[in-house]
């Protein structure tokens, strides 16, 4: 798994030399790293392609895909949140594109984004039980909800 | 009033009465034929199938009515133009150029009436 390999590096401020890069950071640093990614002239990641999460049992890996139109390089930024403590900083203040992406992750995985202006479910109904893209979400919950 | 004026009115009212009667008959027929099963959901106003928030009868923005006021002014003035227009031929023949001048005054006054709200910015839809 690329994620597990990368996690050993534990980089906080990335150095990007190649065309693409793949780094993993601790979640506390996310906001400051993101700011730097966005603002530093040699990084200049102005395009946030998507935010998503992958469920690995006791932790969720959050994936941020960036691209720089100016420098023509892309970056996959990974960070982890423990399933017990699903809170992470929101990036909406830097990229407006992050707004709905974060809401989607919140909706489908239950990750709470600190500082998000409007953190509500986006695809599912407000009273939907559980977060369906988590691996422990059994599909029969769904049926019960529909029957209800 | 001359007798044919009354005839005009008779025609007008008959046509109105027939129009109303036609609708009444058609609605009555429909009442006989059509089903009638009111339900709570059916009698809700349509709003794209979502739960309604707030109500439509509110203090509405005044900008729609500004035009109504303007209309009133212009309509009344325009109505006065009609007799002038009908009699224009005879007026020109009897009064000569002054008929045109009178017409011009009328139109210019109307024009000023338009320029005023225009400059005031009332014609702008904000």
């Amino acid at each position, binding site marked *: 798994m690329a994620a597990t390999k990368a996690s050993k590096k534990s980089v906080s401020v990335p150095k990007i030399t190649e065309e693409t890069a793949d780094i993993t950071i601790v979640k506390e640093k996310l906001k400051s790293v993101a700011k730097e990614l966005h603002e530093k002239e040699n990084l200049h990641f102005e395009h946030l392609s998507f935010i998503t999460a992958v469920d690995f049992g006791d932790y969720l890996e959050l994936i941020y895909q960036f691209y720089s139109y100016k420098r023509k390089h892309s970056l996959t930024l990974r960070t982890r949140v423990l399933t017990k403590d699903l809170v992470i900083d929101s990036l909406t203040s830097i990229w*407006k594109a992050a707004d709905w992406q974060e809401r989607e992750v919140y909706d*489908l995985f239950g990750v709470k984004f600190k500082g998000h202006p409007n953190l509500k479910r986006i695809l599912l109904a407000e009273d939907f039980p559980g977060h369906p893209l988590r691996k422990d979400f059994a599909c029969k919950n769904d049926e019960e909800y529909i029957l209800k | 009033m001359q007798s044919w004026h009354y005839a005009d009115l008779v025609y007008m009212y008959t046509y109105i009465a027939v129009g109303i009667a036609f609708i009444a008959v058609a609605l009555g027929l429909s009442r006989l034929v059509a089903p009638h099963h009111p339900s709570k959901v059916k009698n809700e106003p349509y709003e794209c199938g979502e739960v309604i928030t707030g109500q439509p009868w509110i203090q509405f*923005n*005044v900008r729609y009515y500004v035009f109504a006021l303007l209309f009133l002014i212009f309509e009344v003035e325009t109505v006065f133009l009609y007799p002038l227009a009908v009699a224009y031929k005879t007026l020109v023949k009897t009064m000569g150029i002054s008929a045109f001048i009178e017409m011009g005054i009328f139109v210019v006054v109307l024009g000023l009436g338009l320029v005023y709200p225009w400059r005031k910015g009332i014609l702008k839809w904000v």
Partner: protein
Amino acid sequence: MPGAKTDTIKLNIGPQHPSTHGVLYIKAELDGEIVKNAEPQLGYLHRAIEKLSENRYYHQALPAVDRCDYLCPNLNELVYCMAVEKLAGIKVAERAEYIRVIMAELHRITGHMVWAGSLVNDLGAMFTPLLYSVRDREKLLDLVEKISGSRMFPNYNRFGGVKLDIPEGWLQDVLNYIDIQEKNLVDFRNLVESEIFDVRTKGVAKLTTKQAINFGLTGPLLRATGFDWDLRRDEPYSIYDRFDFNVITEKDGDLRAIYNVRIAEVTESFKIIRQAVKDIPAGPICNKVPSPLRPDKGDCYVRIESSKGELGVYLVSDGSDKPYRLKLRTPSFCNLRAVQELVKDYKLADLIAIVGSIDIVLGDVDR
């Protein structure tokens, strides 16, 4: 009028509304005709494609992905197949690459044309422009049916190639179709580009490049702001580097610019298809793929330029025969976010037009 107290109306636009392109629901707040706030509410067409795919074999996810953007399904298939191929290290047959490009561009044409038709519909025209483009789409669906057996959802791409070889005379049919479409495009433009269309679209929902990038807008919306970017040229996938075509940009960033970009792109697609039809080589249409398919552990992100913008697939494999996680980065979803900010202080009629201009397909938004 100063001093007059007025209330705002909270209006639900959608999901059962004639011009929300399906089941989009916009919570709008109106002050008279002016939109003070508009918030799209999604999910009425959520079919959990991502979750479904996790419980299916790799190839079984294909039909599900097909149903994402139902106007140009082939592009969804293409990007999903590319992701699996990248993860599993599968080579694509040369002939299949050409067929894929032809199919993709055909769908791009119809995507753009149906968009343009429905935009004019949203602006209040009778069905004429929309039906003009739907009429042309009908011919395209015939072509798709001929090659794949299915009209709407071809399910035609396979890992390593495509499902079936080209039937006899199909390439000629494609060329004929393009000729007809090219003529009809002139007709369409004559019909649509009237004075009223101009006043309705020029200067509406102006965007700067900086804003557009920050919103995460891609595709024609971004190009309409004057930003020269097209994944087909700048990050060539499949065999797009072999074709000669222009990337269209406009500088205004308003509805009219978006319209111009898309219509011009249709012409570029004609060019690409003509070249592809000319150069298409003989040979096998699909490489051998191990069955069941078990890509190595790992993940990848693949993106292509769909008719709406950057369409991406993020795929994680845990080494089993099912995808561990499939994330679809759909352009409709990302672009629709901008509506919220764009419509402020425009009229209600503009709101409908702006939503229409974004080119949303609700299947693509909700997945």
